[in-house]
C-alpha cells in the first residue's frame, strides 16, 4: 500500500509538467486535465485513508523509501515519505479542498487566456504541499516548504502585468525566505545535535538532547512557521497576497499553505515538548497574531483583505493551541481542518460576489446582494456562522476547545492567553458580522456609483471584458462555481460536530501528537458560556454600527485605532522605513564603495605608476651631457658603495 503514497504527489506533479511544458495546444483542455489529476490525487488519498482505517491505531504509519538523495558521510538525506494520521489528515484536506477549488476555478478563470498556466501552477502547488506534509525528514520537507512558496509566488503574481501583483508576489517570497532561514538553521542545528534530521530518530531522541539546543531548534522552527503562516512579526505579506486570483486566496492563503506552519510545529511536537520556553514564545506569538489579525480585519473595506485578516487571526488560534503542547495539538489541527472548510468557503463566496460585481472588492460598494445571489448568500452565511463559532457549527467545536486549553495553561499565563482568545472570539464575531452586513444587507450602494478610475488596484482583466464604467448587474455564479461552495458549506456546518462526537478526531490523531487533558481553572461550561457572551457582544456591536444606520460609501476618517488598523497597524510602514529604505541606502553606498574604494585602490596604483613613469621619463632629456652626468654619478656611487661595503 505504501507504493501509492508517491502517486499522491506524482499525479498533480505530472499535471503541472504537462500543462506548463505542453504549451498553447493544451489551452482547450488544460483546466480539465488539472482538475482531473488533482481529483485523482484525492481519490488515492481516500484509498489510503481507507487503508489506514483498516489498521489498528499503532500500525497506521506507512513509510515509502524511494531513493537516497544527498549522501555525504554522516549527512544522509533520503527521499522518503511518511504517511501517518497527521499527514493523512492534511492529504485529505489539501486534495479535497484543492479539487473543489480546481473545479471552482474552471468557472472563475473562464475568461483568462492564460487559464492553462493557472491550472499548471495550481497542480504544482498541490504537489509541493503534499510533499511538504508527506516528507519523512526536515530537508525533504524544506523542498515542499519552498515549493509551495514558489507556487504561491507564481499565483499571487499571476496577473504579472499589474505592478502591484508582481510586487506582492515578490514580497511574499522574500518574507517567506526570512522564515526559510529559520528552517534551514533549524535543520543544521538538528544535524549537529542528532547527526540526522529524519523525523523518526530525531523525535525519538528529542528528550536526550540539551534543552538549550532544543530551545534554539524550536525557536528556529517557530521563525519558519511565522513566515509561512503569516504570524507576527512576519505577517506582512498575507494582506498583499490577496492580489492573486480569489481561488488562490482560498486554497493557498486560507485553507492549506498558510497552515503549514502549524503542521511544522505539531510535527515537531517532541522537540517543543522538551523546550517549554520556546513553547511559551509560540503561545505568545499565537495570541498576539490572533488579536492583530482580528483588529486588522475589523477595519478593512476590501472584502478579501478583511478575510485575510481573519485568516491571520484564526491561524493565530491554531498556533496558540500548538504552543500549549499536548493539551492543544489535536485541537490546533482540528481547528485547522474546520477552518480549511469555512474559510475556503468564505473566500469562494467572496470570489463569487466579485465575479458578479465586475471584480469590485470594496464592500462599501456592495450591499443588499442577498437577493441577487442567493446561493452565494447562503453558503457564505453558513461559513460566517461557522467562523464566529455559532453553536453546533464546526467553528464552535474547534475554537471552543482551544480557548479551554488556553485557560488550562494555568497561572497568569493561562488567564492572559485565555483572555486574549476570548477577546479574539468577540472581535471575530464583530468583523465577520460587519462583512456579512456590508455585503448582503443594507441598501444597494453599487447603484449609480461614480465611475471607477481605471488604475484602481483591484482591476482584474476579467473587468475589461465587461466594460469599465458599466453599472454592475449582480448575478449568481455558474454551477461549476456554486457546487464547490455548497460542498464546503456543508463541511463547515457538520465538520466540527462530526469530529467531536465521541472525540473521533482526538483518537485518530492522538497516536501521533499525543494528548493530555489540561486541568482548567474554569469548567468547560463556563468557558463556553463566556465565549457565547463575547460572540453575542461582537455581533451586537457590529449590528449597531453597520446594521441599523446606513454604511457610508466612502470610509469615514474613523478612530485612531481604525486608521492604524487600515494601515495594518503600521507594521508595513515600519518594514518600509527600516528594511526597504535602509537596504536601498546600504546597497547604493556599497556600490559606491566598490567603485571608488575597492576598485579605486587598484586603478590608483596603476595611475600612480603612470605618474611615476611620467616623472622619471623627464630625466631622459635628450642631452648627451646629462646622460654623461648620470653615468659619472653612477660610477661615483658604484665606487662609493663598493668602498662602503668593504668599510662595514
Amino acid at each position, binding site marked *: 500500500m505504501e507504493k501509492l503514497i508517491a502517486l499522491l504527489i506524482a499525479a498533480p506533479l505530472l499535471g503541472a509538467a504537462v500543462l506548463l511544458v505542453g504549451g498553447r495546444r493544451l489551452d482547450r483542455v488544460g483546466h480539465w486535465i488539472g482538475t482531473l489529476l488533482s481529483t485523482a490525487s484525492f481519490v488515492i488519498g481516500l484509498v489510503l485513508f481507507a487503508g489506514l482505517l483498516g489498521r489498528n491505531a499503532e500500525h497506521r504509519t506507512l513509510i515509502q523509501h524511494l531513493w537516497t538523495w544527498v549522501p*555525504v558521510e*554522516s549527512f544522509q538525506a533520503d527521499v522518503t515519505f511518511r504517511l501517518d494520521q497527521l499527514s493523512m489528515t492534511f492529504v485529505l484536506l489539501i486534495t479535497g479542498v484543492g479539487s473543489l477549488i480546481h473545479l471552482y476555478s474552471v468557472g472563475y478563470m473562464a475568461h483568462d487566456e492564460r487559464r492553462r498556466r493557472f491550472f499548471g501552477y495550481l497542480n504544482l502547488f498541490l504537489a509541493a504541499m503534499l510533499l511538504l506534509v508527506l516528507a519523512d525528514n526536515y530537508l525533504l520537507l524544506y523542498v515542499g516548504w519552498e*515549493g509551495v512558496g514558489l507556487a504561491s509566488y507564481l499565483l499571487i503574481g499571476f496577473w504579472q502585468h499589474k505592478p502591484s501583483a508582481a510586487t506582492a508576489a515578490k514580497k511574499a517570497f522574500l518574507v517567506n525566505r526570512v522564515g526559510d532561514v529559520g528552517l534551514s538553521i533549524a535543520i543544521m542545528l538538528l544535524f549537529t545535535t*542528532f*547527526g540526522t534530521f529524519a523525523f523518526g530518530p530525531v523525535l525519538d531522541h528529542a528528550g536526550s538532547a540539551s534543552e538549550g539546543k532544543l530551545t534554539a531548534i524550536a525557536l528556529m522552527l517557530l521563525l519558519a512557521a511565522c513566515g509561512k503562516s503569516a504570524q507576527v512579526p512576519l505577517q506582512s505579506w498575507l494582506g498583499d497576497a490577496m492580489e492573486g486570483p480569489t481561488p488562490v486566496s482560498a486554497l493557498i492563503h486560507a485553507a492549506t499553505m498558510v497552515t503549514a506552519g502549524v503542521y511544522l510545529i505539531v510535527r515537531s511536537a517532541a522537540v517543543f515538548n522538551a523546550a517549554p520556553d520556546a513553547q511559551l514564545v509560540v503561545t505568545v506569538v499565537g495570541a498576539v497574531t490572533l488579536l492583530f489579525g482580528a483588529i486588522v480585519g475589523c477595519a478593512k473595506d476590501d472584502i478579501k483583505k478583511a478575510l485575510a485578516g481573519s485568516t491571520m487571526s484564526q491561524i493565530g488560534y491554531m498556533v496558540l493551541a500548538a504552543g500549549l503542547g499536548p493539551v492543544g495539538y489535536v485541537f490546533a489541527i482540528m481547528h485547522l481542518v474546520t477552518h480549511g472548510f469555512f474559510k475556503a468557503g468564505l473566500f469562494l463566496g467572496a470570489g463569487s460576489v466579485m465575479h458578479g460585481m465586475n471584480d469590485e472588492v470594496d464592500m462599501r460598494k456592495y450591499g443588499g446582494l442577498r437577493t441577487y445571489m442567493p446561493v452565494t448568500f447562503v453558503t457564505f452565511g453558513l461559513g460566517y456562522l461557522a467562523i464566529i463559532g455559532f453553536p453546533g457549527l464546526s467553528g464552535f467545536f474547534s475554537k471552543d476547545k482551544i480557548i479551554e486549553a488556553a485557560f488550562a495553561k494555568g497561572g497568569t499565563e493561562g488567564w492572559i492567553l485565555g483572555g486574549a482568545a476570548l477577546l479574539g472570539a468577540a472581535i471575530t464575531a464583530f468583523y465577520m458580522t460587519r462583512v456579512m452586513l456590508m455585503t448582503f444587507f443594507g441598501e444597494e450602494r453599487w447603484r449609480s456609483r461614480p465611475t471607477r478610475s481605471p488604475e484602481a488596484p483591484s482591476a482584474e482583466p476579467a473587468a475589461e471584458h465587461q466594460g469599465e464604467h458599466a453599472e454592475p448587474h449582480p448575478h449568481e455564479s455558474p454551477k461549476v462555481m456554486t457546487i464547490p461552495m455548497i460542498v464546503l458549506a456543508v463541511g463547515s456546518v457538520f465538520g466540527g460536530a462530526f469530529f467531536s462526537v465521541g472525540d473521533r478526531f482526538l483518537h485518530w490523531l492522538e497516536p501521533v501528537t499525543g494528548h493530555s487533558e489540561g486541568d482548567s481553572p474554569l469548567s468547560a461550561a463556563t468557558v463556553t458560556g463566556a465565549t457565547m457572551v463575547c460572540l453575542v457582544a461582537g455581533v451586537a456591536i457590529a449590528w449597531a454600527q453597520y446594521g441599523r444606520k446606513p454604511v457610508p460609501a466612502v470610509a469615514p476618517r474613523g478612530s485612531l485605532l481604525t486608521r492604524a488598523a487600515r494601515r495594518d497597524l503600521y507594521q508595513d510602514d515600519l518594514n518600509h522605513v527600516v528594511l526597504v529604505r535602509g537596504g536601498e541606502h546600504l546597497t547604493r553606498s556599497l556600490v559606491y564603495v566598490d567603485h571608488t574604494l575597492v576598485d579605486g585602490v587598484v586603478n590608483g596604483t596603476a595611475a600612480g605608476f603612470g605618474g611615476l613613469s611620467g616623472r622619471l621619463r623627464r630625466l631622459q632629456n635628450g642631452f648627451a651631457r646629462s646622460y654623461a652626468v648620470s653615468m659619472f654619478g653612477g660610477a661615483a656611487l658604484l665606487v662609493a658603495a663598493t668602498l662602503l661595503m668593504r668599510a662595514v
Partner: protein
Amino acid sequence: MSFPLLTATAALPALGAVATAAVPAARRTAAKWLALLVSLATLALAVVVLVRFDPDGARYQLTESHAWIKAFGVRYELGVDGIAVALIALTALLIPFIVLAGWHDADPLETGSRRWRPTQGFFALILAVEAMVIISFEATDVFVFYIFFEAMLIPMYFLIGGFGDRAHEHGEEAAATQRSYAAVKFLLYNLVGGLIMLAAVIGLYVVAGNFSLAEIAQARANGTLHMATSTERWLFLGFFFAFAVKAPLWPLHTWLPNAMQESTAPVAVLITAVVDKVGTFAMLRFCLQLFPEASKWATPVILVLAVISIVYGALLAVGQRDIKRLVAYASISHFGFIVLGIFAMTSQGQSGATLYMVNHGISTAALMLVAGFLISRRGSRLIADYGGVQKVAPVLAGTFLIGGLATLSLPGLAPFVSEFLVLVGTFTRYPAIGVVATFGIVLAALYTLVLYQRTMTGPVKPEVSAMPDLRARELVVVAPLIVLLIFLGVYPKPVTDIVNPAVKQTMSDVQKKDPKPEVEAAK
C-alpha cells in the same frame, strides 16, 4: 603504455582550435560547425574518462607521467581524482552550449581586411580555453598546472577584449574602449596573481626540489621533506593569492563585473562557469594538499573573507542596473560559498563546494545565456530598458525565471543541494559564520526576484513589444541545462559518489575529522 586518455581529452580541443583558426575567411559557418563538433567530441572523451574512472580506486587515476624539463624538476604528470573528473565533465559539457549560444556573436564587423577572421578566431579561442582548463584540472604537477593556469589568460583576454555585445548605449567606439579596459583589467589582475604565485612556485622548488604532488606528499610523509612553518605560510599565501584573484574572492573581485559586463554572454559564462572554477579547484587541490598546516592557520581569515564575499556580492547585485553586472556580483557571492565550503574543512563543506562548482556552472550558464538572448534582442544591458517581457516572450521569461530560481538555490534545483551542504558543513564547525552565510539566501532571493520583476513583469514596454520568443537554437541551448538542473536537484548521488572519496582524501591530507553530533540518533 596505455592510451593517454587525459592528454587526448585536452589535446583534442587544442587541435580543434588550430583547425578552426585555419578555416578560410569565407567559410565562417564551416568554422562554427567544426568547433561544435570538436567540443562534442571532447564531451564524448570526457564521458569516457567519467566511465573509466573508478570512485573507489586509487586517488589519482588514468595517470600519465613523462619527463619534461629535467632542469626544473618538471615532469608532465597528469591524473584525475573525483573532484577533477567532475569539473572536467562540467567543462566539456558546457562548451558545446557556449559555442551554440555564441553562434552569431562573432559574425564579422565591416572593418578589417579580407584576412581578418573574427569568427574563426572566436571559436578557436573558446576551444583553446577549453583545452587549457581541462589540462589544468588534470595536472598533478604544480609546474604543469601553473603553466596552463597562466597561459589560459591569453585566449580569455582576447575573447573578452575582442568580442562584445553588438549594440551598445554609447556606440561602438565607446564599447571598444570599455571592452579593452575590461580585458586589460582581467589580464593584469590575474597576471599579478599568477606572478606572485610564480614566486611561490619557485620557492616551492627551492624547498622541495620538484613539483610532483605525489612525490612532495610522500617526501613529507617519510620526513625527508620538512617545511619551516614560516616558509609554508609564505608559499601558501603566494598560491592562495593567485587562486583568490581567479575565484574571485573579496576584495580581489572587481575585475569580474567588468569582464562579464563587457564580454558576450557565452564568454561571460566561460569566465564564471569554467575558468574561475580553476581557482577554487586549485585551492582544494594545491593549497590544502601542499600546505595543510598553513591552510589551517589561514582558515579563520579566509572564512571571514568568504562570508564578506557572500553578503557583499549579494548586496551589490541588488544595487546593479546592468543585467550582466548583476549576474557577475551574484557569482561573486556564490564563489564566497564555494570558498567557505572548501575551508570549513568538513566533508559536507568540501563535497558541497565541489558540487557547488558544478551546479553553479550549470545554473549561471542557464541564467546568463538566457540573459544574453534577451540582451541580443533589445540591444541593451540595462534592466530599466525592459519590462513586461513575459507577456510577449513567455518561454524566454520562463527559462529566465528557472535560471534565476536556480541562482537563488530553490530546493528541488541542483544548487540547493550544494549550497545547503556548504552551509551545514560550515555550521557544524563554525556556527556563527554558518548563520551569517545563511542570510545570504534572503539576499539571493532579493536580487533574483527584483531582476525578474523589473525585466519580465509589469506593463509591456513599447521597445520590447515586438520581441520574438526563444528560437529553436536557443531552446536547444537552454532546455538541456534546465533538465540537468532539475535532475541534479532531485538526484545528485551520481556526482556525490564520485566526489566523496576524493574529499575524504583531502580531509585526511589536512588531518581533519567531522565534528560529532551531540546525540547519536542516526540509525
